[in-house]
């Protein structure tokens, strides 16, 4: 019996009295790519931040590979926030050095390979890069930690479709079978074929969750269509 990579029970979080998550329950095993889907304000980012251990002041139980959010869980979690977290003046090599200092599980060789795979310019600073390039650099860094849980918050939003494809390939290629990858997005079509399972959030609760192929079989439609249908009702 293995411990779930992520286990959340009765999780609630409010911002100044306004609820963001309501008594949310979730258990996700390792070795899966899970799509976290929902419209704006459904609680995706709040949930990821709590799992990453960067938000406090919530109620309920959260376990990351058996650990409550804190120093021990953070060592196992690679979190890619939706906002840029790297200094503008950084060139890729500076960011690699930063990650090497901060994270014991960081594999700089893998990061260099991914940066080359994405064909990013080594001589440019983040300020001089396009939005898509910056996104690819941050994904390269996040995926190059040997983490148990990867949390990617909207890694493909605001990027052109060709880049989205390359990014998803990069993620697929570097995903480790023993880990859990939880990726939030509202662009379901772009992750449709690579997720094992999906969790649809609405108003801070799980509206629907399940294995991608089981949902397709049961409803006779793709995840994107299913998402539109269940949100409309």
């Amino acid at each position, binding site marked *: 019996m293995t411990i779930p990579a992520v286990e959340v029970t009765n999780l609630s979080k409010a911002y100044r009295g306004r609820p963001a998550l309501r008594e949310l329950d979730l258990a996700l095993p390792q070795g899966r790519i899970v799509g976290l889907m929902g419209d704006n304000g459904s609680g995706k980012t709040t949930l990821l931040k709590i799992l990453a251990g960067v938000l406090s002041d919530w109620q309920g139980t959260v376990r990351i590979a058996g650990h409550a959010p804190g120093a021990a869980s953070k060592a196992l979690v690679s979190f890619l926030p939706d906002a840029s977290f790297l200094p503008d003046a950084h060139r890729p090599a500076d960011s690699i050095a930063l990650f090497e200092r901060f994270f014991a599980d960081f594999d700089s060789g893998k990061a260099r390979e991914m940066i080359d795979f994405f064909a990013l310019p080594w001589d440019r600073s983040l300020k001089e890069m396009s939005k898509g390039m910056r996104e690819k650099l941050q994904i390269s860094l996040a995926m190059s930690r040997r983490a148990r849980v990867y949390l990617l918050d909207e890694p493909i939003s605001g990027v052109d479709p060709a880049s989205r494809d390359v990014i998803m390939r990069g993620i*697929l290629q570097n995903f480790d079978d023993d880990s859990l990858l939880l990726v939030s997005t509202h662009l379901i079509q772009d992750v449709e074929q690579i997720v094992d399972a999906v969790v649809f959030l609405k108003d801070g609760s799980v509206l629907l969750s399940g294995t991608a192929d089981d949902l397709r*079989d049961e409803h006779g439609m793709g995840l994107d269509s299913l998402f539109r249908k269940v949100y409309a009702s």
Partner: protein
Amino acid sequence: MQIDDSRPIWAQLVDEFRRRIAVGHWRPGDKVPAVRELALELGVNPNTVQKSLAEVDRLGLTTTERTAGRFVTQDVSAIRAARAALAATTADGFAAAATGLGMSLEEATRLLEQRWNARKDDQ
């Protein structure tokens, strides 16, 4: 391969792998590409590929050897059966479409013969 998002992907991959074996794209005794390689080629989840390959094993078209990996079967009768099944499905599709157009078996057969020969002449 074009994936239809409205049907379970694992079942579509089983069809695709059976087709590859039936048409000889993967030959008897060939090593089947690694799960990750196939996942990247097809742009799908590795677990889905794994599940599909296990089903192709179960169908007797591939065998897994613990250390060496997965190979296409050398059993030609199994491959012949896969080819026959694929041909039958294709024929079913034609029969259904011809029926939908209001054709009789005789007309459909004549049309098939005509097109078959025209195609041969083209080559």
